[in-house]
């Protein structure tokens, strides 16, 4: 409200009361209202000041966005952790034979340099060790001239 009286002229046309007593009533009522507002007892005035400061302090107080987000974030983290804990035991459960075979094959490439595990290797391999030895020696001798 910049100047409340500015718009009064236009208001008069529609809101005007021709009765002269209206003028008296309005002026008198307003004067009494203003006087009553000025003559507020000190205790009430003090409370009003305190109420105003409280309202303004509430606005000045830093918005606790972090505190507001802590609870949902913590809840989400707890749920995620719980799901992880549930999921991990499932992933370590005995896998299917097919998967196990695949993983064995993959690990075989890596462990080529290691001596074969007697328990995991095919028993027929040990039965034909001489043949495989001869095959390896033959292949080595055949490949040498070719490499050169």
């Amino acid at each position: 409200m910049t100047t409340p009286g500015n718009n009064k002229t236009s208001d008069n046309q529609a809101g005007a009361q021709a009765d002269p007593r209206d003028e008296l009533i309005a002026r008198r009522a307003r004067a009494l209202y203003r006087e009553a507002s000025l003559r507020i007892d000190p205790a009430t005035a003090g409370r009003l000041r305190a109420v105003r400061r409280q309202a303004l302090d509430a606005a000045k107080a830093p918005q606790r966005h972090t505190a507001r987000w802590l609870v949902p974030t913590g809840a989400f983290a707890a749920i995620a952790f719980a799901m992880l804990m549930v999921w991990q035991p499932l992933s370590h459960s005995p896998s299917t034979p097919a998967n196990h075979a695949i993983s064995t094959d993959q690990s075989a490439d890596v462990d080529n340099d290691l001596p074969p595990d007697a328990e995991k290797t095919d028993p027929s391999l040990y039965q034909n060790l001489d043949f495989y030895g001869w095959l390896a020696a033959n292949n080595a001798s055949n490949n040498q001239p070719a490499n050169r």
Partner: protein
Amino acid sequence: MSTVAGTLETDLLLDSARETPATLDAFLAQVERRAFRMAELNLRHREDAMDAVQDAMLRLVKHYREKPAAEWPPLFWGILRRRIVDLQRRRKVRSIVVGWLGGGKDDEGSEMPVWEPADRGPGPLDRLHDSQSYADMAEAVKQLPQRQREAFMLRMLEGLDVAETARSMGCSEGSVKTHLSRAMHHLRGQLEDWR
């Protein structure tokens, strides 16, 4: 200009305090006492009036402090008006509940007063020099229907213009003028012997 609004225009233009302050603190400091009196006139209870003013201040600061200063007055008075209506409704519901529970009548069947906490604080009449006139006005305003009372208080007592009064009341400017006209008509009858 022999109209009420014309007379008030002069008053308002002379009243330098009507300029809206630039800061919210200064604005609230300017209106807090009048807001209290307005709430008190409506609610007839000082503690309820204080609660209404406090709530209006908090809501204005919380939700509308970023608004231009020129918009604060209609926003503030609108918030206060709604808060007053809320408190009046709550009081009415409380009275109904007390009536259902048998608190509305005493043992002899006589009507008990509507339950309201006692207001023992110093009223405006204790300090106001022209106390009887104020009491007459308060009683006459109390007799007005809700919307007429709001229009009279915001437009005539607080000095908002029609557009601001309409914003505060949540109605059209035409409705404000109608309510105000009827309010003045009632007050003429109520304050026949007012001096």
